[in-house]
């Protein structure tokens, strides 16, 4: 067996150890590599930054714990930006496991910027059904959400006074891990002509470039890297920025593994799929 064959049969757990080390070491010993802000994140930042104080921003935070690593820091950073600009924030989630994440995210952002629930922001909670809620809110937010997450009727919430439907909303910010973004584009942007900024998981971020070109989206923040860029733009040092050294190192490891695997394959003279690694006993 040649070195290349041995390499191709490498126990996958060695790769796992490499990835684990690549993640942990930079977190323990950060070097804080510089981050540059991409044009799409800058566009998202500027869209919010130019809104006049007192405008209302609707946040649809459609994600669950599985990908909270990417979207939770993004939520906090964007919401803090809105609060710093004295914008009113209305938040909701269309994911059933969302409230448990969204509520603390709003609390953290509001506390850091000294904002008060119901006066500066409202959390409407969860509602099932994606498209039906989106279109329904276009007619009447109160019909879909008669009370907020805490059971308070919307009419009793100062920040909700005068807000009937999208007509009173200046900007929609959707942070999502799913097709909710497509539906927001279809209905809030397409039907009700609301400007929209999207924060998406990195997996789906590349799918939304056509909507940037057509101006259906005004900004795109992709994944934890996008969140880190937003944090940098805000001059914050949150969880996303802290993770960027590890992100760099693991990317280098994965790229190296891809190249190594290809070189080993050619050296071994094989052209088909690589042989399976020794499967651990289950």
């Amino acid at each position, binding site marked *: 067996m040649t070195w290349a064959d041995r390499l*191709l049969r*490498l126990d996958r757990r060695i*790769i*796992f150890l*490499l*990835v*684990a080390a690549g993640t942990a070491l930079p977190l323990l010993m950060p070097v804080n*590599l*510089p*981050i*540059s802000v*991409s*044009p799409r994140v800058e566009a998202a930042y500027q869209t919010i930054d130019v809104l006049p104080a007192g405008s209302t921003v609707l946040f649809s935070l459609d994600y669950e*714990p*599985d*990908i*909270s*690593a990417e979207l939770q820091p993004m939520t906090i950073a964007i919401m803090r930006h809105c609060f710093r600009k004295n914008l009113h924030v209305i938040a909701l989630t269309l994911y*059933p*496991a969302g409230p*448990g*994440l969204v509520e*603390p995210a709003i*609390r953290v952002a509001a506390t850091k910027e000294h904002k008060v629930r119901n006066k500066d922001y409202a959390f409407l909670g969860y*509602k*099932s*059904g994606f498209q*039906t809620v989106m*279109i*329904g809110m276009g*007619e009447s937010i109160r*019909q*879909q959400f008669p009370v907020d997450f*805490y059971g308070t009727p919307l009419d009793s919430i100062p920040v909700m006074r005068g807000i009937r439907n999208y007509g009173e909303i200046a900007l929609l910010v959707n942070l999502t891990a799913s097709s909710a973004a497509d539906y927001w584009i279809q209905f809030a942007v397409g*039907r009700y002509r609301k400007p929209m900024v999207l924060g998406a998981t990195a997996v789906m971020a*590349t*799918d*939304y*470039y*056509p909507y940037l*070109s057509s101006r259906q989206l005004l900004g795109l923040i992709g994944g934890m*890297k996008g969140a880190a860029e937003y944090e940098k733009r805000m001059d914050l040092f949150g969880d996303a920025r802290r993770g*960027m*050294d590890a*992100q*760099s*190192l*693991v*990317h*280098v490891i*994965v*790229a190296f593994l*891809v*190249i190594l*695997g*290809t070189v080993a394959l050619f050296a071994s003279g094989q*052209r088909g*799929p*690589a042989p399976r*690694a020794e499967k651990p006993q289950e």
Partner: protein
Amino acid sequence: MYLGPILLTFVVGATLIALYFIPHHQAQEINSELLLWATIVYAFALILGSVSLWSVHAQRIRQRISGWPFSLVTLFALLGTTFMGVAWGIGEESPLGRFYSMVNSPLASTMFALLAFFIASAAFRAFRARNVEATLLLVTAIVMMIGRVSVGEFIWRGFPGLTEWLLDVPNLAAKRAIAIGVGLGAVSTALKIILGIERGYLGRTR
């Protein structure tokens, strides 16, 4: 052959399409009411999922299928969390809110974090430059992986610009074609459902 439900789908679907084009406030009130009904029915559809999970695991326990004690864990968790949420609410400081931060959140995020290991292993084993197409895919993936993170900029200052170009030009073109294709597919499927040509959603027809 389910004529009633097929007619209902037709009437509701056609009404919704018509209401899209009618801005009159009474038409929009009807639209709003129908949408609210759908929101409520959707909630029950999700509840059906949990009820179905209950019946699957209860059956595993009754029949003592291998691994049935784990099904007990599922059922206790299902019952316990439902009770906590219905009795004391779902707020951050409620018992369910604390349970969510302590159990649901770490479990869900760690399940997905496992994928980082598997994607690295898969990249090593399966990512091969066998022909022009595979080489294009591989080279783009490596450029994106290195170019989108800080270390890429450190290696070569042109990396971020190159990745932006890849996303803004070839990626945009391909994703736009896919989006148009998906759109056409979704519209034709929806029309087939409304017109009663596609009936699979009603289950097996005799």
